[in-house]
């Protein structure tokens, strides 16, 4: 039975693809296939909003779901499914939902649709990836009881509802947080906070392959694993961004290189990740159809502050000043990344171009002087990174050479760790030298960077009470504007102690075919709804 259905889908796919594959095919698909475009994608892990944090899944979910809030290209929150998100004390939030919105199966979108989805994500035994996003909602601990000392198994929670979520009426949801959090509205833009219809909960496994959302596109048929995910325009959509095309076909690729070849062969219309090595060529070939988007992703060099050889702040600063970021960016990333002198990415509100001052500026003489003042470094310096991408080794080698030439540290070794082992190494504080730390932004708030990476229990083993206090103050500030100066003060402390060095900010490089127009990729969404097919 399954097999028959599978081959029927495959057959349909083959027909659809051959119909839009160039030659003027007989008019079997009607106008539908003519107004369809394709997007290269890597196989997603899940399509349940609460259970995935992978970029690939999110690309699809952003077309399928309308979240309460979205972030505009300036990094400011804008209402989408919500009419308003307000609070007097930053602790109890009232979310008003726009009436008249529907799921793809016709079910109305209500406050309950959000509460159900969030409860499911926060419920420990479901083991969904986005579980920790609900950590600051009251009642989270009851849904995630801790394992008793010495045991690997946690007891089953007594409830499956967050006590902090209250459905007041169909269009009003009240959220009580465990502590004031001024950035709450921004976090709601994350797809992990999308609503789910009642129909989803009868069979969550089926929903994961065939999600029902409330966005401008609906799933068309099943997710054909490793091949494609087809979406079609949702005619019942009442929101602010109706789809301009009739359908999107996500074609799943194993390798970025192959996807890029297919873009050149006009077999796929949009790719969001051109391999860095092909970027120069792509720029030349695609012209205006080459898109570079600044991203929220940053690379850092962290120090094991729990290791006594790295406890001198001057030593850490000297290492920062000895690294010529621009030279590495030019050599390894074709000059596309941006050297950083700030802990947060440029697109985050509150970013200051030169927050770090001279400590992040390459200066061989000053670096050496500071290094000697700090007593130098003896023994072997181990540099840690994972083997997930060949470019990590390239830039780490460049860093090692600069430390050798500029500070005279001669004994440097590389510790290249299997990707699956890297994070547990850092988590367990097994690194005894500088290591690559990377952060992919969840939402554009300084809090997302500072608290997650420099806050309590951080990988560097760095402790600073003043920093933590400032973060708390900022989190409970009356408005987002008022929180920014406080986050900046906290950033200043982290920079003056330098437990982790900012290196560079990433850029995403995409491109599209001449078949489509209206491409508006930004750091927050590929905005597939704005694309029209010529």
């Amino acid at each position, binding site marked *: 039975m*399954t*097999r028959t259905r*599978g081959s029927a889908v495959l057959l349909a*796919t*083959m027909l659809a*693809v*051959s119909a839009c*594959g160039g030659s003027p095919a007989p008019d079997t698909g009607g106008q539908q296939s003519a107004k369809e475009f394709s997007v290269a994608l890597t196989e997603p*892990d*899940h399509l349940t909003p609460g259970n995935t*944090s*992978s970029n690939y899944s999110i690309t699809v979910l952003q077309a399928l779901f309308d979240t309460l809030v979205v972030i505009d290209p300036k990094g400011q929150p804008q209402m989408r499914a919500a009419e308003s998100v307000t609070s007097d004390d930053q602790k109890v939030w009232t979310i008003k939902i726009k009436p008249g919105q529907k799921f793809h199966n016709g079910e109305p979108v209500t406050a309950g649709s959000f509460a159900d989805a969030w409860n499911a994500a926060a419920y*420990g*035994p*479901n*083991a*969904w*990836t986005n*579980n*920790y996003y609900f*950590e600051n909602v009251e009642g989270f601990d009851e849904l*995630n*009881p*801790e*394992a008793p000392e010495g045991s*690997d*198994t*946690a007891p089953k929670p007594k409830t499956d509802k967050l006590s902090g979520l209250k459905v007041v009426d169909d269009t009003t949801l009240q959220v009580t947080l465990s502590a004031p959090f001024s950035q709450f509205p921004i976090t709601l833009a994350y797809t992990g906070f999308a609503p789910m219809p009642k129909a989803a909960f009868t069979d969550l*496994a089926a929903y*994961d392959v065939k999600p029902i959302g409330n966005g401008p596109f609906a799933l068309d048929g099943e997710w054909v*694993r*490793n*091949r494609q995910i087809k979406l079609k325009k949702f005619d019942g959509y009442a929101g602010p961004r109706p789809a301009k095309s009739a359908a999107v076909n996500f*074609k*799943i*690729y*194993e*390798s970025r*290189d*192959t*996807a890029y*070849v*297919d873009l*050149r*062969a006009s*077999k796929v219309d949009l790719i969001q990740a051109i391999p860095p090595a092909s970027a120069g060529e792509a720029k030349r070939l695609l012209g205006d159809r080459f898109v570079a988007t600044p991203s929220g992703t940053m690379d850092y060099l962290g120090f094991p502050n729990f290791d006594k050889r790295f406890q001198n702040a001057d030593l850490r600063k000297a290492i920062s000043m000895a690294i010529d970021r621009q030279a590495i960016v030019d050599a390894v990333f074709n000059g596309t990344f941006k050297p950083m002198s700030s802990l947060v990415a440029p697109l985050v509100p509150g970013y200051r171009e030169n927050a770090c001052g001279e400590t992040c500026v390459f200066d061989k003489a000053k670096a050496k002087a500071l290094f000697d003042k700090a007593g130098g470094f003896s023994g072997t310096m181990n540099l840690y990174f994972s083997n997930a991408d060949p470019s990590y080794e390239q830039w780490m080698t460049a860093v090692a050479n600069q430390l050798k030439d500029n500070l005279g540290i001669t004994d440097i070794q590389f510790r290249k760790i*299997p*990707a*699956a*082992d*890297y*994070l*547990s190494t850092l*988590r367990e504080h097994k690194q005894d030298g500088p290591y690559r730390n*990377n*952060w*992919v932004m969840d939402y554009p708030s300084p809090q997302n960077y500072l608290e997650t990476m420099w806050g309590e229990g951080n990988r560097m083993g760095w402790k600073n009470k003043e920093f933590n206090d400032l973060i708390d103050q900022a989190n409970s500030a009356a408005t987002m504007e008022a929180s920014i100066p406080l986050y900046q003060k906290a950033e200043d402390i982290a920079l003056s102690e330098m437990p982790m060095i900012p290196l560079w900010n990433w850029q995403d490089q995409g491109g599209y075919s001449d078949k489509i127009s209206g491409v508006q990729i930004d750091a927050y969404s590929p905005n597939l709804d704005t694309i029209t097919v010529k």
Partner: protein
Amino acid sequence: MRYALHRLLQAVPVFFVTTFLIYAMVFALPGDPILALAGDKPLPDEVLYTLRERYNLNDPLLVQYGLYMLHAVQGDLGQTFTGQPVSELLQGRWGVTAQLAVTAWIFELVVGIGLGVIAGLRRGGITDTAVLAGTTFVIAVPVFVIGYTAQIMLGLNLSLFPTAGVDEGWPVSYLLPGMVLGSFGLAYVARLTRTSLIENMRADYVRTARAKGLRRRRVIGRHALRNSLIPVVTFLGVDFGNLMAGAVVTEGIFNLPGIGQQVFQSIQLQEGPVVVGIVTVLVMIFILVNLLVDLLYGVLDPRIRRG
């Protein structure tokens, strides 16, 4: 018949030892597969515990393997870390790899033997030299270089073949990847056929056949070539394993959603059940192919059958 049965029975311990070794190897890979699921983000302890328990990752190796086999004989190969049943995952993929392997095999067989015969009969000539040089080149260059080059030259620039994917079905979508995958084996088949043919052409029985006044075609076809094919058939049998290994690279380059891609992904994600599930079937296929090869010897040379 008894011979065939004997061979099949031999396969049983081979089967268990192989699957256990594979399971142990995946088990021994460094790193925590569950932690790696979340990328750079933290996973709450509760989620970690639940997932570890769900996949029996807290148990000792032998218990894990035992549980796996117990379920496997009941037809349940378990599920991936993203919750997809392994049997469903593999179902869709075998077809792709089988079509790719068959395409590559036919290519090796037809073109390889063809080139070998031509080269062997014109030993030292221009054709022979060309075949020798060409095959040396193919053997020396890694598959991914040949793959990407063929994709850009023949797929993109000349548009002779689709660049990637299986949208156009068999054989169109499989021709170029099949040729790339088969190129290495082809080079060997051509060289083996050539050498073997040259040797056999000098053998007594061929001279006798010629002396009897048989036509050249018949001498080569019925006598020399038939004997020359024995080492070639052995190679083609063994090569089936190579094809599977090469499929990992080829399927990656040409974006074919087959078994090779899956093995690669699953090893990276340390998904023991998936890797073992695939390898189990591969081991069975390998045993079967070798059995067929042994039986084919008998057809090519009746002396082997009697002995």
